[in-house]
């Protein structure tokens, strides 16, 4: 069956089988290689992408479920060079092998979009589902904290910083 997804801002229509996983379609059919196939069970977070802005495990999503929706990978964050989160991750030497890096970056980006001023606890919780087995989390947490600060500063020049969580549904 045909599905249409907006991948990193570009609408694409592609024929898929119901049994195709989203990660395989993104990597092997649409050629975007940043999401990695790690555990295949939703444990490691290497396959993280944003689906309509929310971090999800693309190894646990059928490609057909993404029909009509928007998928974002790290490639979209760095269209004009690394964005603020990515720059801080680089500056803090947050990664060694880099396998977890796309997932961690997207988890951090999603956190900062919904929470401009996260506590250390909230930063740790946001990246807890992205397993890094090289460097440890200290540099990652430091990078996210610094990126949050600079993003708030930048936003403050234009308007008062927004606080708190994403719109609460109830």
């Amino acid at each position, binding site marked *: *069956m045909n599905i249409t997804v907006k991948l990193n801002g570009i609408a694409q229509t592609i024929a898929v*089988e*119901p*049994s*195709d*996983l989203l990660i*395989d379609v993104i990597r092997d059919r649409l050629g975007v290689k940043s999401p990695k*196939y790690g555990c*295949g*069970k*939703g*444990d*490691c*977070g290497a396959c*993280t992408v944003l689906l309509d802005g*929310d*971090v*999800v*495990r693309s*190894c*646990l*999503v*059928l490609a*057909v*479920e993404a029909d009509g929706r928007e998928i974002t990978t790290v490639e979209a964050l760095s269209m004009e060079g690394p964005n603020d989160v990515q720059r801080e991750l680089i500056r803090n030497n947050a990664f060694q092998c880099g396998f977890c890096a796309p997932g961690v970056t997207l*988890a951090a980006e*999603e*956190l900062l979009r919904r929470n401009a001023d996260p506590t250390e606890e909230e930063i*740790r*919780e*946001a990246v*807890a*589902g*992205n*397993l890094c087995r090289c460097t440890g989390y200290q540099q990652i947490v430091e990078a996210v904290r610094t990126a949050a600060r600079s993003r708030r500063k930048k936003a403050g020049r234009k308007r008062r910083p927004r606080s708190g*969580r*994403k719109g*609460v*549904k*109830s």
Partner: protein
Amino acid sequence: MSIAHPFVYEKPATVGQALKLLSRHGPRARVLAGGTDLIGLMVDGAERPDVVVDIKGIKGLKDIRREKSATVLGSLATFTDVLESSLIRRKLPVMAEMAGWVASRGVRNRGTLVGNICSAVPCCDTGPILLAYRAQILVKGPRGARRVPIDKWFTGPRTTVLKPRELVIGIRIPDPGRHAGCFVKMRRYRGEDLAQASVTVLLMPGKEWRVAFGSVAPKPIQGKRIERLLKGRSLDAGLMDKVVDLTAKEIAPITDIRSTREYRAHMIRVMMRRALEGAVSRKAGKGPPYGSELI
């Protein structure tokens, strides 16, 4: 790795259409909500449905709403929805606390509470909390609607009273009144690990206590003996010791990949104590804020 067997994907727009599909295909169909459990099982080959019925196209099932002195969670409400709902935080704070400790953000954004109770693994986090809140499961099937009290829901590891051809519409939680409580979950590491053991304690109006355990029996269980012992009483050191000793009678832990039986049995005592103390101090308006790590 990918899913090795072919299947038909259906995305009904209404509950009626979904029921028709489930009716037609019976046990050969599986309902897909968040997929965080089902898709992993399909990749492993443990689940091989011929038809997958994706209910995410059904409007209204994602709502968390009020209904005549109860809160109703639709079957598409995710853990993130529950965690961020001001209604849940206000009315059922221990539920929000539980939701925050499930897996990771990436799983919480997708996984649903109803999916969790339908998977019915013994270590699920929703089971104990819903037992403590005396929830009812709203089911629709070819013979109409029925409500299943949560203590009749689980029948064993990965099994429930839900029949093929039936669909869970949501979870109804009667208003508990002014209460406080704790959800204490032990796991090896943060981020994804399932519970090695969990204890839920609610202190209700009129000194009624509610106690439930996860991951220490073939299914989530209610601590009935402890509830009876505590009923109408205030907690003191002597009573606390009695309750902690009684945990051994309530649970039947096993040794598995996450923990040994002995470790579970020991730690459940520690967790029981913390949950009771936490519930009392939260009821008094003190204690750690909801969502704090309690062990």
